[in-house]
């Protein structure tokens, strides 16, 4: 048999290989620098976690950025108060985001559909406004929470006599967490998160969540209380967001209130829908695509375009460059919007559906040559 249906171990191995080789295959795409790759991995975690809630239960949370923000603030405070080591920062980030998800989830999950979305949006916007002004003593408001030389750093100061003049950097037992080491740290956690998400998808718990998505009333009639399941899914996905937030702070020790704004919550919804709701790799693809647009497309200006189109005759290039220029640089939102519309209209299953359609097309051609039908090719239901 030519095509072996993939089992989960190979799936995970391929995913890990693709993530870890990012520094190589991103170079031709102009994205092979540490900061962007860190962002890919971090927002990948964020989107994968969001997908556990949205993809499995169908509950659309519009306030996930709040957990991202809480994770960041917790991580930066851990740097300030305790140690520059990243392990406590990650733990605190996940813990606080989880606690907050428990509270918000407990309140919001009493409603479903649009009411649930609005409730979560309201909570997130509330957190944003609190962080922006009222809670300034904790969050430092607009300026954002930053490290400073006067921070207590209780645990670090027990072991080392502080002599350096600059700001300390975040470390993993002495290894600096910026640049490439930072990326590999994020990538390792991303692979771990992918694995956990895969286990959840395959577990009875995951099946239960899928059951809730397809018909919650039916689940209730069988005598099952669905709310604890949904709350668990909500908290897990909040903890994923908290992890992503703490990683943002680890690779760049600053936490700003904008991280909690509704646009950030909307972004993760876009990522998941772009990539493919309810699929394993979809959210990661969507996250990568959006971050690529935000960082690479926004940097294209007319100079770059002129050199890119220099093969055209001058008179043609003069027309092409300004037209294309509308869609890159400051106009990257426009391109992303158009792409989003195209995907939602023609590929409701996101990029993943696009890929599977292509594979199906490819396989059909092979079959017509002389293939035989395997049971795996048949729909399961």
């Amino acid at each position: 048999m030519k095509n072996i249906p993939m089992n989960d171990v190979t799936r995970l191995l391929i995913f890990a290989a693709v993530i870890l080789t990012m520094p190589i295959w991103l170079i031709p795409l102009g994205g092979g620098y540490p900061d962007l790759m860190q962002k890919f991995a971090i927002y990948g975690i964020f989107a994968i976690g969001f997908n556990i809630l949205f993809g499995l239960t169908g509950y659309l949370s519009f306030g996930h950025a709040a957990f991202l923000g809480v994770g960041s603030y917790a991580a930066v405070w851990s740097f300030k108060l305790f140690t520059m080591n990243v392990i406590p920062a990650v733990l605190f980030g996940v813990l606080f985001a989880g606690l907050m998800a428990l509270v918000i989830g407990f309140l919001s999950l009493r409603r479903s559909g649009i009411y649930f979305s609005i409730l979560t949006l309201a909570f997130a916007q509330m957190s944003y406004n609190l962080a922006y002004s009222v809670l300034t003593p904790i969050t430092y408001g607009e300026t954002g929470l930053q490290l400073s030389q006067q921070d207590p750093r209780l645990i670090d100061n027990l072991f080392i006599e502080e002599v350096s003049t600059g700001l300390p950097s975040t470390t993993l037992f002495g290894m600096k967490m910026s640049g490439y080491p930072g990326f590999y740290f994020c990538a390792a956690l991303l692979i771990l998160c992918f694995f956990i998400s895969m286990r959840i998808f395959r577990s009875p718990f995951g099946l239960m969540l899928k059951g809730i998505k397809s018909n919650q009333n039916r689940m209730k009639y069988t005598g099952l209380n669905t709310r604890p399941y949904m709350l668990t899914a909500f908290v897990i996905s909040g903890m994923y967001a908290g992890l992503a937030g703490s990683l943002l702070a680890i690779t760049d020790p600053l936490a700003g209130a904008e991280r909690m704004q509704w646009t950030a919550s909307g972004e993760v919804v876009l990522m998941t829908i772009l990539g493919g709701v309810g699929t394993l790799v979809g959210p990661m693809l969507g996250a990568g695509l959006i971050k690529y647009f935000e960082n690479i497309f926004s940097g294209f200006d007319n100079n770059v375009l002129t050199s890119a189109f220099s093969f055209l005759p001058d008179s043609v290039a003069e027309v092409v460059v300004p037209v294309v220029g509308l869609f890159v640089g400051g106009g990257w939102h426009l391109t992303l919007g158009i792409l989003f519309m195209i995907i939602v209209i023609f590929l409701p299953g996101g990029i993943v559906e696009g890929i599977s359609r292509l594979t199906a097309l490819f396989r059909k051609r092979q079959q017509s040559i002389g293939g035989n039908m395997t049971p795996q090719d048949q729909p399961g239901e």
Partner: protein
Amino acid sequence: MTKDFKLDFSRRGLLKAGAASGLVAASPAFFMRNAWAEDFRNNPGNAGEVKLGFNVPQTGPYSEEGKDELRAFKLAVKHLNGEGDGGMLNTFKPSSLKGNGILGKKVTFATGDTQTKSDAARASAKRMIEKEKVLMVSGGSSSGVAVAVQSLCQEEGIIFMAGLTHSNDTTGKDKRRYGFRHFFNAYMSGRALGPVLEKEYGKERRAYHLTADYNWGWTQEESMKDTTEEIGWQTVNTVKTPVGAGDFSQYITPVLNSGADVLILNHYGKDMINSLTQAVQFGLRDKQVNGKNFEIVVPLFSRLMAQGAGEAIKGILGSTNWNWSLQDPGSQAFVKSFGAEYGIPPSMAAHTCYVQTLLYANACEMAGTFYPPEVIKSLEGFKFDGTGNGPTEYRAEDHQCFKDVLVVRGNENPTSQFDLLKVIEQTPRSQVEYDWKIFGGELGPYKV
């Protein structure tokens, strides 16, 4: 589960992936070695070009200012490379600029979009530093962004020439060795407005503050309160308004019955446009309170905002860093070449960004190197003239520029759509100077 996606891979594909993941094990060491081989970040070495990074808001609430900043940056690069009419290069002194790029290397640039968000601004600054290998980052139109990018640049060892940022913190408690600000700050606005307010409105006034509820708003309110109370005014109330409120009527109505006779709007951007327009619509300016005409003051004014507020700004007092109507040779030269290039006069955001770029280039020429600690040393305490604000000094202790501050009034009879602000006083530098210690903060090390 019909839609459940299955990716099928051939054995060959798996082998390939395996080989690639083996390769990657060696790659971190490879990249790290390159990173440490250079003596300072993004050293251009023998390259014939140097790259500067212009990080401006191209989307979001301050995108108008961002676009104008970008125009100024492009003009500055042109002039540094000896193209165009040279603009301020002809009036700036003492100048080491030769019009052949910086230290003989042609100047190119990369741009980024801050979106007026700290996160996005840091991400695009990082992209420019890590990928585009820029030597200096400049631009921005908000203090939050300036502070965030400034501390990033300190960590990365890249010089940051701040664009429009007015909060005291940028060169106060959040100052950094690698960050420099040419723009004035909230404290200086207060000092400059004080005497004019006293002269225009007298010593016995009751002021009511509406303040944008974030860091910049608070420092602005504090500075205005201190100044007005010094000349004998009373502060009736200070009310914080959420940023981007849109509708300010609920905050303006209480002003009418508060017994106050001056309203101070510590707002900027769209907030200021909305609050001022609504205050005028509510008839505040036609009122008589305590036997005096009711007045409105906007401490930080910009022409782009004035354009948005339209009729409402007529007769309103405020302060500004620079205005295109100034008659000194430096301003004239800049307005002339900006106008010839783009057909509109430059805003104060454009002016500060243009000057910052020239100042960085000049400091490199003076130091004879791009090595940041040396460039910083030649900027610290640098005295110069011919950039539109009279004699100016980059104070070494906090990297804040000291120069004259303009007090302006919304023009009653504008002659054109750009002629909106009238300079009524040029407050001398000595009056707005302060002890750098009052805001605290630490610059940090030269070498990072």
